[in-house]
């Protein structure tokens, strides 16, 4: 049962072969038995899930079901859930119970999906390894059989590990610089970061508002399409949401790929990539050629500046967004503050972890008097140059393909002492957020028994085409079906 996709579970529920209560109980049991090894959940909502499952079964019996009615899934603990603790992986919000739902949460609720709990993540989504969570690191299900505790990637490492370990068939996630694609790659699952503005950010705890985008994680491209059908769409509550109709993303999954024009950005096949990783990615591209695609080399000349631009823009926006955590209205407050300033400074010193504080300080510096033009404005100008590279590339090709990450999952603790080394983990994913275009990571092979991800990047609002390309690849490969032992 736990190996089945959302699409398969949905069909079984439809045919009455299983009830949502039975299904939900099975997955809850699995989380209970298995998650001690992974720590992929921060909160499991057993009672609520069973109540929702019962309601879903009644809904189905009444003949009023969506494809999601009764299907279990999980939310990254960054999406506000009314009445259910939402921590964002931080001590600051360890006891925060939101009095409202994020739009994404509400959409899944309306579709009748059954949320089993909230998944672990890097604190405030700042990280590439899910090691900075206040609730402990998440362990990648891959590598354990070789005796290694490896990172699942991050920041959506809890969602990725839970899906890879078959604790849930699907989970929501968010991506500011690679936080969906890199963990999807490292855990051997399929993930999609949509176009900026495609999925509402309302109730999704903000990190860097001009980059953050909610998205999908599941084992198959088809399940990602089913998720996006629920998540995508205009939301007046999010001022940066795009007022544009979302298509049925499952409708075009079976389109043939003949004539698809693929570009390989030469900057993403550089010496930062190991030969073994490169071989897997090139083999995947060859599969696409067999499916009728054509391949050419393209250039993103400013991509090399992406990490530098990101580490100004993201910390700057984070420093502004996280100024709301002041100990006054919700969240953590230090003990016995002696005055207001002491309350602010100690609440924030004690409530935030090391990496979050580091980024707030960098961002505050970049925005401070005398540095704004040199850092923030300069980075925003470079951001336009990077965007222009993508616009130019999509005049020549339909999609771009590259590795998702420079290497497979690394061992826990290996990169925690040097922030800059950790930042380079997102070297192939960050430019996409700066440009705001959509991209996926699709399982495409193994190196030393660890999964490798193929990144597929598309033009603005081309999610349906990306999902189609990923789905066709999954009809002729079985990397996405491999199960960690």
């Amino acid at each position, binding site marked *: 049962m736990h190996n089945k996709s959302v699409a398969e579970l949905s069909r079984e529920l439809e045919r009455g072969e299983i009830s949502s209560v039975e299904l939900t109980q099975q997955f809850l049991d699995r989380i209970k038995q298995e998650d001690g090894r992974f720590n992929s959940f921060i909160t499991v909502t057993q009672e609520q899930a069973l109540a929702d499952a019962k309601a879903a079964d009644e809904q189905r019996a009444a003949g009023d079901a969506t494809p999601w009615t009764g299907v279990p899934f999980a939310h990254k603990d960054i999406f506000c859930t009314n009445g259910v603790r939402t921590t964002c992986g931080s001590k600051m919000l360890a006891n*925060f*119970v939101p009095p409202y739902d994020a739009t994404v949460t509400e959409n899944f609720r309306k579709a009748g999906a059954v949320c089993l709990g909230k998944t672990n993540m890097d604190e405030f989504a700042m990280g590439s390894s899910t090691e900075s969570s206040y609730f402990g690191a998440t362990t990648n299900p891959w590598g354990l059989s070789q005796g290694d505790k490896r990172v699942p990637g991050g920041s959506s490492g809890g969602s990725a590990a839970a899906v890879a370990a078959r604790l849930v068939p699907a989970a929501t996630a968010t991506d500011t610089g690679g936080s969906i694609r890199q963990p999807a790659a490292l855990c051997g699952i399929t993930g999609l970061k949509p176009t*900026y*503005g495609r999925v509402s950010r309302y109730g999704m705890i903000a990190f860097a508002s*001009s980059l953050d985008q909610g998205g999908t994680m599941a084992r198959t491209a088809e399940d990602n399409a089913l998720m996006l059908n629920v998540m995508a769409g205009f939301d*007046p509550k999010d*001022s*940066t949401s*795009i007022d544009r109709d979302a298509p049925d993303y499952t409708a075009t999954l079976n389109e043939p790929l003949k004539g698809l024009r693929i570009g390989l950005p030469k900057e993403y096949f550089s010496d930062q990539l190991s030969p073994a990783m490169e071989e897997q990615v090139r083999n995947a591209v060859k599969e696409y050629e067999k499916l009728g695609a054509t391949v050419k080399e393209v250039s993103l000349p*400013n991509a*090399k*500046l992406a*990490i*530098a631009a990101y*580490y*100004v823009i993201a910390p700057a926006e984070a*420093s502004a967004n996280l*100024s709301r955590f002041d*100990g*006054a*209205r*919700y*969240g*953590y*407050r230090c003990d016995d*503050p002696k*005055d*207001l*300033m*002491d*309350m602010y*400074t*100690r609440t*924030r*010193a004690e409530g935030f972890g090391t990496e979050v*504080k*580091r980024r*707030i*300080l*960098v961002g*505050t*510096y*970049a925005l*401070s008097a005398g540095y704004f033009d040199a*850092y923030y*404005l*300069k*980075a*925003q*100008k*470079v*951001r*336009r*140059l990077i965007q222009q590279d993508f616009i130019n590339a999509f005049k020549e090709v339909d999609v771009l393909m590259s590795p998702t990450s420079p290497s497979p999952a690394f061992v826990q603790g290996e990169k925690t002492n040097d*922030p*800059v080394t950790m*930042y380079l983990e997102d070297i192939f994913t960050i430019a996409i957020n700066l*440009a*705001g275009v959509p991209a996926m990571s699709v399982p495409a092979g193994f190196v030393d028994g660890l999964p490798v991800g193929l990144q597929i990047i598309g033009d*603005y609002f081309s999610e349906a085409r990306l999902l189609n390309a990923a789905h066709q690849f999954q009809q002729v490969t079985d990397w996405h079906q491999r199960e960690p032992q």
Partner: protein
Amino acid sequence: MTISRKDIEKVAVLARIRVDEEQVSALEKDLGNILDLVDQLGAADTANVEPLAHPLDAVQRLRKDEVTETNQREAFQAIAPATEDGLYLVPRVIE
């Protein structure tokens, strides 16, 4: 780009984060390394390039000036660290 001890102390005040004496040298090193990484930006020719704030260059929408939210004071105050008579309590500001 090096960042001085004094810079860090100033930024910590601006960011309202208490930084203890023994943390300063580690921050000096880490922030210095991050700023070194960021200094690559200086090499880019950005003359006549407009800064990009929204990838689709969208602007803020305006809505009608109508009340759309309901009063949820009790729900919001229920999760606050300290309240009294419908107000949020903080340490005394005026003696």
